[in-house]
């Protein structure tokens, strides 16, 4: 190593160090450069498309199970029973947010758009069980019992109606007792925000028992307190 | 295509067929025994110069295994695939890690996940799974274990 190189080495080291220190000093002195956000006090507003916790508006959910099928990690579990109006009644709708990877595929496929992302992202919990979001507050067994009762009532009514029809028109007794779905009752029972698709589906269903409408009316009422909570 | 004909002319029966329908890049199916020879030829021949092995993958074709080599030439910018079919029972084929050093890790991975043995490999150990793992998970008939060292899976 020649003397010139030796001195060059020292000079270069000093110069580059000084350059770097000038930059750090500028940031050190300039208080405006601070970018930290004091998290619990200052909260960043998530963007409009932010994919936070999932929320299912069960009043609109049609239990179509698209979300369950599309979920790559099987974090959504859904149980439903067929109601008196042949529509599915949710018994339970749980999302395990500990397992959810917030990919948003379920929200994309949801036909009635009842499943949405909220802006929630704080997931600190004391127990693992708390990570399961339950959207149907009522006890599953109760719903099942209620629906079963309604179905039974409807069946009884249908049988009655069939009997009456039989009595009225004995000639057509051989015909299987399928009541004609001309009655628009289920349509009236639907809440206003039902999508046309679901409405059409409901109209197609052959059951016309008034019990179905009752169940429809009961459901949103039950969901309301939960929504407020 | 031209490469296939050239290979077939040179190696005869060792080169069985060309898979080019709905397969990109096309595969030349070769026999296991002649693989190192063909590989060396493909790498060294001035018209071929397949100097990089892009990808080496094991495939479980249900009735047999296959090992697929995707080759690329930086000099000529062309591709070819090599495929070797192996029997399900004790599959093994010669290693090519002296032709393309890159093959070593990929062969280890294939050995690990498929149980295909690469003879003459520099260092054929399990790579992704623990040394004492049982079975080869990417086989279609793989049974998921109940537990590992007493830890429930």
């Amino acid at each position: 190593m020649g003397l010139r190189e030796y001195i060059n080495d020292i000079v270069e080291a000093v110069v580059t160090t000084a350059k770097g220190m000038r930059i750090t000093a500028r940031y050190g002195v300039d208080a405006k450069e601070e970018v930290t956000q004091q998290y619990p006090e200052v909260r960043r507003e998530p963007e409009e498309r932010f994919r936070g916790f999932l929320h299912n508006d069960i009043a609109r959910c049609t239990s179509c199970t698209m979300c369950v099928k599309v979920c790559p990690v099987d974090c959504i579990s859904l149980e439903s029973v067929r109601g008196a109006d042949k529509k599915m009644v949710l018994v339970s709708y749980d999302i395990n947010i500990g397992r959810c990877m917030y990919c948003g595929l379920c929200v994309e496929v949801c036909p009635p758009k009842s499943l949405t992302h909220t802006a929630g992202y704080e997931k600190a919990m004391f127990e693992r069980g708390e990570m399961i979001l339950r959207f149907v507050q009522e006890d599953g067994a109760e719903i099942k019992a209620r629906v079963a009762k309604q179905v039974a009532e409807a069946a009884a009514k249908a049988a009655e109606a069939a009997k009456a029809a039989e009595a009225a028109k004995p000639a057509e007794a051989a015909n299987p007792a399928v009541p004609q779905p001309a009655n628009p009752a289920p349509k009236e029972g639907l809440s206003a925000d039902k999508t046309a698709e679901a409405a059409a589906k409901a109209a197609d269903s052959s059951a016309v028992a008034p019990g179905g409408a009752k169940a429809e009316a009961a459901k949103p009422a039950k969901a309301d307190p939960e929504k407020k909570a | 295509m031209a490469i296939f004909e050239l290979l077939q002319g040179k190696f005869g029966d060792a080169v069985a067929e060309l898979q080019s329908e709905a397969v990109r890049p096309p595969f030349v199916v070769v026999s296991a025994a002649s693989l190192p020879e063909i590989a060396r030829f493909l790498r060294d021949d001035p018209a071929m110069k397949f100097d990089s092995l892009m990808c080496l993958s094991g495939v479980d074709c249900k009735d047999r295994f296959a090992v697929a080599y995707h080759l690329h030439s930086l000099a000529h910018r062309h591709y070819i695939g090599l495929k070797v079919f192996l029997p399900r029972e004790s599959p093994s084929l010669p290693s090519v890690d002296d032709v393309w050093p890159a093959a070593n890790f990929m062969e280890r991975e294939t050995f690990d996940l498929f149980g295909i043995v690469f003879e003459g490999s520099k260092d054929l150990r399990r790579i992704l799974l623990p040394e004492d793992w049982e079975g080869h998970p990417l086989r279609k008939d793989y049974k998921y274990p109940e537990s590992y060292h007493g830890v429930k899976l």
Partner: protein
Amino acid sequence: MTRPTEALHTQEMLINMGPQHPSTHGVLRVLLRTDGEVVVNARPDIGYLHRGLEKIGERVTYAQFMPFTDRLDYLAGMNCNCAWAWAVEKLAGIEVPERAEYIRVIVSELNRISSHLIAFGSFTADMGAFTPFLYSIREREVVNDLFEMVCGNRLTYNYARVGGVSADLPQGFLEKTKEFLDYFEPKIDEYNNLISYNKIFVHRLANVAVISAKDAVGYGLTGPNLRGSGVKFDLRKDEPYSVYPKLEFDVCVGTGERGVLGDCFDRYMVRINEMRQSVRILRQAVAQIPEGPVIAKVPRLFKPAAGEVYFRSECPRGETGFYIISDGTTNPSRLKIRTGSFVTMNIFETVTKGLMIADIVAVIGSFDIILPEIDR
């Protein structure tokens, strides 16, 4: 008279570096055999993060696999997303609307910048200078904000779809991108002044772990690691896909400016220069982006015809290749993921012979490996 070296008995030391170690970038374990500070042999042991993505790929549909590609390389989720989408589109022969392609290129390049920023930042932190790391995080945060705007998540984007992207760019996104580019470009010079050409930093990197061009090709290195050895090969240029042919940029290669061609410093500088090129690409893409739909019509029950495809694209850590074998059902019959970091680890043992312990850290940093990509 016995010479003192004969009388002294020295022993090799076996040190376990990792899987918990501050600078192995995750759960990489390196078994070091050292003679004092000099490494006799460094054997990487990987697999601590093996999640069986390839097996998962056989179980889920093509669309469902998209979120898993985020987990392939979590610092470059967009690139992996797009790579998967391109691969499946190539398999099924789907035409993608041009706007979607532009969007993909924009998000990919933004992601490349943010990924290289982390590479730069964590590398300098490994070298002992912690401050540049926080500067790079600061810039990356802006990119994350942009991504949150466009797809709703900051790290695992799941933005691309087979046939396009999940949603059009939101209002004001392009303006904010331009703003970011104007803000970011001068910062690269600042990094160079702060650390890149710092004497100590240069000394730590120059002439360390030199990989010749021949070795780099033979060992299958790709991406910046390959270009660091002076091989001018960039998939965006040499095997153009998407709208890259319409965009002008240079392929950055190592020059050996401070040491030998192919040393750690070259690999580092390639990344720094690539950020500039990404800015260049982004400026053009933002200016050129056409109006139109962002997703092609793809049936919900997507079943590509039986066939095999190998598609590779240029990700920040080298080429990410998907070898998909379709048997005509909704799921791939075999999915092989070839990642840059995995193949790069192959050369690790060879290049680290005779280096110092501190150099091991430099080599890991200069390869810019990421463990989920290695272990998949």
